[in-house]
C-alpha cells in the first residue's frame, strides 16, 4: 500500500478494473439488455482487454498511462461508453500533469477533472440515471477526503462507497440520457449499467491502490446483489 498514487498504482488499478469488467461482463450486458441495447459488458470488456494488452509497454508516469488508456478506449469501445470513459481518462491524465506521484488532494482534483470531462461530453446531470450518478458522488467523497488529512486508502474507500450508493440509487430513477431514456417510466426499477461499471472502476481503485486487498471480491459480492435487485424489479411489470 502506498500513500500516493503512482504509475505502478495506476497500472495495478487498470489491470484490476480489466479483470473486474471481464468477470462481470455478462451481468453488465444483462443490465444493459433490460434498459438499453445489451452491449455494455462486451464493449467495456473489449476495451479493457485492449488496455491490458497495451499496458505491457512502459508509457511512463500516471499522466502518460491515463492518456494511453483514454486513446485505447476511444478507439476500441465505441457506443457511448467509449467516448465517455475515454474522455474521463484523457482529462484525468491531463490534470495529473507531469507529477510522478499524487497525494490525496491532487488525485481528488485530477479525478474531478476526469468527471467534468464526462459531464461535458455526455451533457448529463446528476439523477439522469447514467455513470455520473456513481462518478459525481465518488468525486465529492475524494475531494472531501483531500480537504482533510485522510490517508489514500481511506479516501479511495470512501469514494468506492459513495459510488456504490450512487449506483444503487439509480434503480428507481427514470433515465433521461442514452438509450434507456427511450423507455421513459419503464426504465425505473433497473440499475444503470454505466453507473455499475463506474462503481467497478472506483471499487478496483480502492482495492488496487488503497490496499483494501479484497476489492475485487467485494466487487463480486455487491455486483451480484445489484443485479439480483434489478432483476427482481424488472420481473414486475413496470
Amino acid at each position: 500500500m502506498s500513500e500516493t498514487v503512482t504509475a505502478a498504482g495506476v497500472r495495478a488499478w487498470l489491470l484490476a478494473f480489466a479483470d473486474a469488467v471481464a468477470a462481470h461482463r455478462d451481468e453488465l450486458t444483462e443490465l444493459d439488455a433490460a434498459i438499453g441495447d445489451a452491449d455494455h459488458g462486451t464493449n467495456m470488456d473489449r476495451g479493457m482487454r485492449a488496455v491490458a494488452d497495451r499496458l505491457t509497454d512502459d508509457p511512463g508516469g500516471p499522466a502518460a498511462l491515463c492518456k494511453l488508456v483514454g486513446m485505447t478506449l476511444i478507439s476500441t469501445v465505441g457506443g457511448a461508453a467509449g467516448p465517455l470513459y475515454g474522455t474521463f481518462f484523457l482529462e484525468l491524465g491531463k490534470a495529473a500533469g507531469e507529477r510522478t506521484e499524487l497525494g490525496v488532494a491532487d488525485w481528488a482534483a485530477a479525478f474531478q477533472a476526469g468527471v467534468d470531462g464526462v459531464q461535458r461530453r455526455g451533457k448529463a446531470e446528476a439523477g439522469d440515471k447514467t455513470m455520473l450518478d456513481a462518478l459525481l458522488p465518488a468525486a465529492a467523497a475524494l475531494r472531501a477526503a483531500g480537504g482533510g488529512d485522510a490517508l489514500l486508502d481511506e479516501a479511495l474507500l470512501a469514494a468506492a462507497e459513495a459510488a456504490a450508493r450512487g449506483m444503487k440509487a439509480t434503480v428507481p430513477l427514470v433515465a433521461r440520457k442514452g438509450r434507456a431514456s427511450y423507455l421513459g417510466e419503464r426504465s425505473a426499477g433497473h440499475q444503470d449499467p454505466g453507473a455499475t461499471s463506474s462503481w467497478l472502476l472506483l471499487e478496483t481503485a480502492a482495492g488496487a491502490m488503497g490496499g483494501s486487498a479484497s476489492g475485487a471480491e467485494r466487487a463480486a459480492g455487491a455486483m451480484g446483489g445489484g443485479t439480483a435487485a434489478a432483476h427482481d424489479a424488472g420481473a414486475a411489470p413496470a
Partner: protein
Amino acid sequence: MKKLINRPEDAVREALEGVALAHPGRLTVHLDPHYIVRADAPVLGKVALVSGGGSGHEPMHGGFVGPGMLDAACPGEVFTSPTPDQMLAATQAVDGGAGVLHIVKNYTGDVMNFEMAAELARDAGATVEQVVIDDDVAVRDSLYTAGRRGVGATVLAEKICGAAAEQGRSLADVAALCHRVNTEARSMGMALTSCTVPMAGKPTFTLTDAQMEIGIGIHGEPGREQRAVAPVHEIVALLAQAVVEDLPFAPGDEVLAFVNGMGATPLMELHIVFRELHRFLDERGIAVKRCLVGPYMTALDMAGCSLTLLRLDDELTALWDAPVDTSGLRWGA
C-alpha cells in the same frame, strides 16, 4: 443461439471480408480500422458523404456505398457506434476537396463519436459538416430523453443527398438538403419478435406469441408499449396515424412511402403492410408518389417493420429518381 456465425467476436470482420469478396471493383473494404469506401474514392471536386453506425442493420450503411449515395461507411461492432478513428480514416480517404458531410443517426454513442471524429478531422484540415437524423416519432423529443432516434429517414437522406453531391452541389447545399429530408420525414416501427445480439447469445427481450412491441427501435430497445397482436390493417393504422399526425401530413401532400423490414420479416408480409399503408393514405387524400419496400435498415433477426413517410416536392422527387449504383439500392445506372 443458432446462427451462421463462426465466433461472435469475429462476426463483423468476417462479414466485411465477405463484402469485399462480393463487390470487388465497387468497394474497397479496410479492416484496420473498419471502413468501406467506394472504389473510385476520393472523387475530386465532389462533396463526400460519410455515414456509419453499429453493425447488424445491413444493408445500411455499407450497402449504400457507391455512385449516387455514400462515399464511405463506418461499421461499428453489432449495435455499437463505430469509433472516431474509423470515421477520421474514412473522412480522409473520401475527401475530394469539396468537403465532407457526416450523416449521423441520433443515438448518444453515434453523436458523441462523430463529434469527436469531426473535431479530429477539422484539426487535420478537413472541412466537415454533420447532420443528425432524428425521425422516429415513437420517442418523445424532450429535455428528458436523448431525443428522437434516427431511423428510416436515414436511408432516404443518404440517397437524396448522394444524388445532390453527384450533381456537384456545395457542402452547404447538401447539408441543407439533408436537414430538409429530416424535417420532412417521420417514421415509426414495431416488432413481432426480439433480435439476438451475437455476443449476448440470447434474445434482448421477450414477446409472447400474443404480443407485439409498438415503437420499437432498431436495436431491440423498446418503444411506446407492448400490445396484443392485431390484424395488419390495425397495426399499420397505429403506426401510420402516429407518423401522419406528427409532421403533420395533410390531404393533398405527395409522399415517398417506405416500408422497411426489420430483418426477419418476409417481403411478402412487407408488401401486405404496404398495401394497407397505401389504402390508409388514399383514404386521407395523401398521394403515394414514390415507394420503397424491403429490408434496408434491419435489426439483425428481428421480425417487424417500420413505416417512413417523406413529403416530396419536385426537387426531392428528382433527386430520389436520379441514378444510384450501390449493392443495396440500384437504379438508372
